[in-house]
C-alpha cells in the first residue's frame, strides 16, 4: 500500500514539475512595461565582461526565433510596482510577465505566501512548458533559485547591460 502511495506522489510530483504552476495572465494590457531587452541571436558574440548568469541565459534561449533572437518585454501589475522596485517580498498573485515578442512565449511569475510559482504559456494561454527543455518549470526553478545571487524573490535583480538594450 505504502509503495503505491509513494509512487502516486512521485508521479504527481513529476506532473506538477512538468506543468506550469503560475496562472496565465489575462490582463497583460493593464500591466506596466518595466523593462525592454533582447535575447541576442545565436551569431552574436557577447562582450567578455557579460555576467555569467546572462551568458547562461543567452546560451539557453538563443534558439528562439530560429536563432534570430527576440525582443523581450517585462510587464508588472500596477499593484506590485513598488514591490518590484525593491525586489520583493511580493504579495499573493501574478508578479511579473516576460514576453518573447518575436516568438509566441509568455513567462509568468506568481507569488503565494512569498514563494514564487512559474508558468510558460503561448499568447493564447496554452501551457507550453513541456515543448522545450529550456521552457520547463524545472528549468525555471533551477535558474531562478540556482542563481540566488541574481534572482531575488523570483525576479531578476540585475540591471540590463548594453548588449541587451
Amino acid at each position, binding site marked *: 500500500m505504502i509503495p503505491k502511495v509513494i509512487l502516486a506522489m512521485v508521479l504527481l*510530483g513529476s506532473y*506538477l514539475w512538468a506543468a506550469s*504552476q503560475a496562472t496565465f495572465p489575462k490582463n497583460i494590457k493593464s500591466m506596466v512595461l518595466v523593462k525592454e531587452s533582447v535575447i541576442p541571436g545565436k551569431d552574436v558574440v557577447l562582450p567578455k565582461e557579460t*555576467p*555569467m*548568469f546572462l*551568458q*547562461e541565459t543567452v546560451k539557453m534561449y538563443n534558439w528562439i526565433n530560429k536563432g534570430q533572437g527576440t525582443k523581450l518585454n517585462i510587464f508588472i501589475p500596477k499593484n506590485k510596482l513598488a514591490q518590484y522596485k525593491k525586489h520583493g517580498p511580493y504579495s499573493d498573485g501574478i508578479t511579473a510577465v516576460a514576453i518573447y515578442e518575436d516568438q509566441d512565449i509568455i513567462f509568468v511569475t*506568481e507569488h*503565494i*505566501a*512569498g*514563494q514564487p*510559482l512559474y508558468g510558460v504559456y503561448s499568447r493564447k494561454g496554452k501551457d507550453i512548458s513541456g515543448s522545450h527543455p529550456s521552457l520547463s518549470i524545472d528549468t525555471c*526553478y*533551477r*535558474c531562478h*533559485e*540556482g*542563481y*540566488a*545571487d*541574481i534572482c531575488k524573490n523570483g525576479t531578476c*535583480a*540585475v540591471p540590463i547591460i548594453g548588449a541587451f538594450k
Partner: protein
Amino acid sequence: MHRYSITTKVFVSHLFLVVVLIAGLSYRHYNDQIERYIESITQFHSASSYAIVSTCSDAIAGDNYANLQMREFVNQLQHNDKLLMMVVEGRSDYSSNPYKAYYDKTKGELWRGVYPADFEKQTLQQITLLKKHLSNPSADKVKIEFLIARLEDMKRNYMHDIQMSTQIAKKSEPLLSTTDTRVDFETNRLTLALKTDNQNGGTISMVFDISEIESIRKRILHDIVLESLIALALSLVVLGLLSANIVRPIKRLSEYLRGDFGRLNPNDVPSKEQSDEIGMLAGSFSQLLEQMQGYISQLEQLSKNDPLTGLFNRRAFEEVFVHMEKQLAEYSIGMLYLDIDHFKSYNDTYGHNAGDIALQKVAKAIESSLQRKGDYAFRLGGEEFAVILSAENEEKVLSVAERIRESVENLEIEHNGNARYRHVTISIGACFEPYHKGINPKVLLERADKALYSAKADGRNRVSISS
C-alpha cells in the same frame, strides 16, 4: 695511510669518488623522474579539469548550486576515477555571498556546503505560513501544497548537506588545508588547487588518487639501482685497469733501480718510451743514472790515480794486481820497487816545486820504459814507485828494471845532494814469481822492498833482484 700501496690508494680513492658520483647522480635522477611524473600528472589533471573550472566559476559567480548538483555534472566528476574529493569555494559576483560546495567520490554526491545562518528558521516560517493559507477556502490548494512540498524538500536537503559537510570536514581538512598544489607521499594523494575565473574569484581544491606513483617509484628505484650497479661494475673494471696501468710502470722502474747500480744501463730504463708522466719520470731517471755513472767513473778514476804524476796510486795497486792476474794468467809476474836516491836532500836543496817536477819527470820516464800492455806503474807515496810486470822470466824483469834506471839517469836532472852521481838517479829492488794461483801482491812488494835495500846498500843507482 702510508702502509697502503699506491695501487690500493688509487683504487680506493677513485672508487670512493665513483661511488659518491653514482650515488649523487642516482639521487638526482630519482628526484628528477619523480618530479617529472608529478609535473606531468599535475598538468594532465589541470588540463582535464578545465570544463570543471568553467562550470564551477559560473556557479560561484551566481551563487548557484543547482548547476553543480545536476546529474550531468556529478556524472562528469564520477567518470574521473582518480578524483576523490573536491571543494569549491569563493564569493558570488553580485552579493559577495560565501559559496562552498563539496564533492566526495565515495558518496557519489555533490552538495552545498554553506547556508545563510537563518535558512532553517526561514524555511520553517514559510512552511507555517503556507499551511495557514491552506485553511483559506478560496486558496489554490494544488499550488500551495506544491510550494510546501518544495520547501519541505529544501529543508531535507539542508539537513542532509549540513550532516555531509560535518562528516567531510574531518576527512578533507588534512588534504585540503593548502591552497597550493602538493603531493602527499604517505597517502599517495595529489591536491590540485585551481583558481576560478569568476569576478570575485575562488578556488577549486581537488584531491586525486595517485597510488600508481608507488609502483612508478619502485620501478624508477629498481632501474636506478640496476643502472648504478652496472656503472659501478664497469667503474671497478676501469679503475682496476687504470690503477694497474699507472702503478705497473712505476713498479717496473722501481725493480729496475733496485738492481746493481754499476750494471744499470741508462738506455734500458723501463717505460722510457711512454709519452705520459711515467715516461717523463723514467726519462729523468735515465738521465740521472747516466750522470751518476759519469760522476762515479770520474770519482773512481780520481781515487785510483796519483794527481801529481798521473800514475796509479797505492789504492789501485791491489785492484790492478787482481785484474792483471785474471787477464794474464799465462804470464808470470815481476815486481819492481823504485826509490829516488837522496830525494829529501833534493827537496831541501831545490825546493818542493822542483821536487814535484822531478817526480813528474821520473814518473814519465818509468811509464815510457814500459812497453807491454800488461805492465803497470804506481806511485806508492813520496819518492817511492812500484811496477808490476807480466814477464816470462827473471831476465826480462831485470831488463825492464835496468831500462828504467837508465832512462831516469839519462834525464840528467841536476842533484848535487846525490854526491856520487850529481844527477837524479833511482835504486830498484826487483823480484820474479812464476804464475800460480793465490799470488799475494803484498808479499811480492815486500820481497822487492828487501831487494831495494840491497840496491841502496850497494851504492844506489842500481838494480837488485830478490833471489
